[in-house]
């Protein structure tokens, strides 16, 4: 549990949460500018109300709670503006067959059977792992990433994700499938097969 060495957070103390908060915001707000602004407001509010951090939850959880309110407010403000049709922004345009052929032969076998990952849980302690992980998330196509964040960060059920993104259920599942496979492959390539981090 963090023990404050003084009573206030400084903006730079919170910088390491920025990208996480951005993902949380972009999942629901879609527009990068809006998401970035909400994150900035959140961090400033956090600095101002440092006292309200009790240390009962993690700093990230506390920041997320502040951001949630910012998002609710922003959505309320936007409620009157027309809903933009998201179909144009869909990543699912290229065929799922094409995606699958990245990993599978035409007979459905693995192109290359994925290797085992050694001691994955140890990675959590390693800052370099989190850096690679963030980079892998950054590489997801925009709408695929939003679907994945709504599922894994916001914790929505698939049904609600479809509504939020205005896509069909099957599209939704395809996106989540892609996100998982994409991320799996990226982590393998960037981390588990890379020896640079093993001193």
């Amino acid at each position: 549990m963090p023990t404050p060495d003084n009573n206030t957070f400084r903006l730079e103390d919170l910088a390491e949460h920025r990208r996480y908060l951005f993902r949380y915001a972009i999942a629901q707000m879609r527009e990068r500018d809006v998401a970035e602004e909400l994150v900035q407001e959140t961090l400033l509010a956090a600095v101002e109300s440092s006292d309200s951090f009790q240390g009962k939850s993690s700093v990230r959880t506390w920041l997320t709670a502040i951001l949630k309110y910012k998002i609710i407010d922003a959505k309320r403000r936007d409620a009157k503006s027309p809903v933009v049709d998201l179909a144009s922004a869909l990543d699912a345009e290229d065929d799922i067959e094409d995606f699958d052929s990245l990993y599978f032969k035409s007979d459905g076998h693995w192109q290359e059977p994925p290797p085992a990952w050694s001691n994955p849980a140890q990675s959590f302690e390693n800052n370099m792992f989190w850096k690679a992980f963030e980079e892998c998330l950054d590489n997801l196509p925009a709408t695929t990433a939003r679907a994945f964040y709504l599922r894994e960060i916001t914790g929505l059920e698939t049904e609600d994700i479809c509504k939020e993104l205005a896509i069909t259920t099957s599209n939704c599942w395809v996106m989540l499938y892609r996100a998982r496979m994409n991320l799996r492959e990226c982590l393998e390539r960037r981390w588990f097969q890379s020896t640079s981090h093993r001193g």
Partner: protein
Amino acid sequence: MLSCKEVSHLNAARFDRPLSLRERFQVWLHLKFCDACIRVFSQLKFMRETMEQYRVGPSRNEKRHKD
């Protein structure tokens, strides 16, 4: 029997929806014979844990200032 490709779809779907009895049986049957798909499933599980960790954020002393 299902192919590795089909099993991958179902293995990933397990994190987003309940599988039907039939689907569960088909996956189970495939995994009896396929180490690669077992590994991938455990890696997908690891990724779920990673996201849980990611939501909580770093647990070290977070109020430290730059050295």
